[in-house]
């Protein structure tokens, strides 16, 4: 057995890792490049060189040249923040991104979600957003044929496709009037998730990338849902032409997940948790570096706070070095 008792310790920030902290990546570079409003920006207190964290009610600028974006409102011709977060500026548009928030999606986002309810011709999916997302029966690939029309029999056996509790990866297709998202899984890369384990991180830590499906060198597949839900699973060779449509909705894990695979999956999962714990952006590069860094530790020790911290530190330094 393995048990250890610790005293609480104050949180220590990773030094030199600012470039990868979530606060700096977006927008601020734009601000520096943007020469037109240099004066305005300086005069209004929007400092380009340091990150600008504001709290609700704090005046961001009193320059009327700016437009208000998300997370701000105008009072007495001043732009005031309405959330606690980091100021973003794109040209004349000022917005504030909250640090901790529910997921706010955009069309085309890849999300991982959990089915919470089966309703009339639709599933409700928890995607960590303010409303459960909707997956319509007409937005899924029905088994047994390419793009066949849905029939009444499909409506009666919806639970054979997705059941309460099932995890799916899907794409945001549209918005409903009440702010709920409509999802679709009409591509062979989307659908039910198998062979792995689920991790949830703050949605702000997952950035929009070219791809959210990654196969890491260690033989582990990672799906980074933009809503902060992450699926880490054993590598399954993707042969999109020959996928048996009957198997898309199967609940069975593949038989040959070796203990080695399981160890790698657990390791990757712990790396992601370590990064999330330090509030560092999560992408495939940093996960790979964190995985490399974790190899010097025993798998079962990876839950320890100081080791998690060390792994996150090492991974950020490695990314820094790579970027020069």
């Amino acid at each position, binding site marked *: 057995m393995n048990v250890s008792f610790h005293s609480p310790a104050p949180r220590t920030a990773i030094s030199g890792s600012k470039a990868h902290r979530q606060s700096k990546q977006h927008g601020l570079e734009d601000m520096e490049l943007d020469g037109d409003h240099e004066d305005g920006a300086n005069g209004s207190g929007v400092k380009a060189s340091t990150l600008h964290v504001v709290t609700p009610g704090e005046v961001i600028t009193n320059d009327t040249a700016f437009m208000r974006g998300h997370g701000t409102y105008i009072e007495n011709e001043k732009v005031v923040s309405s959330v606690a977060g980091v100021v973003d500026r794109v040209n004349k548009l000022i917005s504030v991104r909250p640090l901790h928030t529910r997921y706010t999606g955009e069309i085309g986002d890849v999300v991982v979600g959990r089915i919470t*309810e*089966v309703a009339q011709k639709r599933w409700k999916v928890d995607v960590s957003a303010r409303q459960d997302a909707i997956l319509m029966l007409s937005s899924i690939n029905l088994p047994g044929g390419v793009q066949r029309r849905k029939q009444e029999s499909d409506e009666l056996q919806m*639970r054979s496709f997705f*059941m*309460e509790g099932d995890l799916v990866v899907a794409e945001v297709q549209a918005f409903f009037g009440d702010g709920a998202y409509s999802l679709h899984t009409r591509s062979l890369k989307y659908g039910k998730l198998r062979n792995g384990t689920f991790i949830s991180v703050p949605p702000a830590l997952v950035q929009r990338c070219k791809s959210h499906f990654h196969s890491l060198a260690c033989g582990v597949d990672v799906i980074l849902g933009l809503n902060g839900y992450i699926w880490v699973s054993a590598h399954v060779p993707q042969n999109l032409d020959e996928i048996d449509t009957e198997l898309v909705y199967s609940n069975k894990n593949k038989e040959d997940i070796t203990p080695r695979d399981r160890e790698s999956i657990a390791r990757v999962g712990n790396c992601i948790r370590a990064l999330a714990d330090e509030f560092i952006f999560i992408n495939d590069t940093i996960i790979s570096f964190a995985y490399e860094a974790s190899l010097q530790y025993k798998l079962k020790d990876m839950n320890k706070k100081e080791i998690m911290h060390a792994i996150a530190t090492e991974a950020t330094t490695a990314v820094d070095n790579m970027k020069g």
Partner: protein
Amino acid sequence: MATDRKRVAGPESSVAPLVEYPIDHQPWTPFTEKRHDSHRQPEDLRPIYLKTGLISEANGSAYIELEKTKLTCGVYGPRPVKRAGQGFSDRGTLNCEIKFATFSCVKRRGTMRDAQEKELSQILSQGLTPAVRLELFPKSNVDIYITVLESDGWGSCIAAAFTVASVALAHAGIEMLDLVAGCSASYIPTSIPSTSSSTTSEAPSEGATGSITPQIFMDADLEEEKFQQGSIVLAYMPSLNQTTHVLQSGKAEGAIISQSVEHCVEACNKIFAVMNHALLESIDQKTV
């Protein structure tokens, strides 16, 4: 505790009636006599009377009597889940409620379910669920209501509740994997330990309590329970060889526990025969 304002409240506190004993009456102790009921050996159970079909309104019912422990049980269902908004479930649920009649114990019980009865209800449903094929009743609910009419020994009362409920379930024609038999045992020291060394609790207790090995009394009654160091209640499925619940309280050595688990399993097999007999009898009555 919430009070029920619709009822006429009794006196705030009650006192057990004084019973006049003959002058030479000696209360029972485990140091003088073997058991409170002198006909029994430590491993003997009380005779069980079990009968099905007592409540006409229920889908299945049963009554159990172990001398002065008397319980009735009614089973309703499977029937649709009444509470809406619980979400879909592909398995049925088992809802168990046990209530001690106000007059069932030495002290008068409250009219409303108290915290202990709520916990016991939970324990009973945890112990009965493994036996019931709930996967066959999606979206439905099976309600089991147990009323304790008379309680003579708590461990035996809970054990009897398991037994009577599973017979009632079977009587209701609900598909089950096995019957659940319940059995209780008490650990009772049969010699008076020396009290001198036991007052110092700072010292490791080897010298204090560990020295007396208590005797295991099966199916103890109230008088015997007064002397117990600890007790165990075991619910067991005899055909599948599975324990469905175990509840132990009080301090005991590991060896005593394993011994009493074995004893209880053995006793459950005996109780199983009685349960079988009672069920077969109820069928015989119908076919005649």
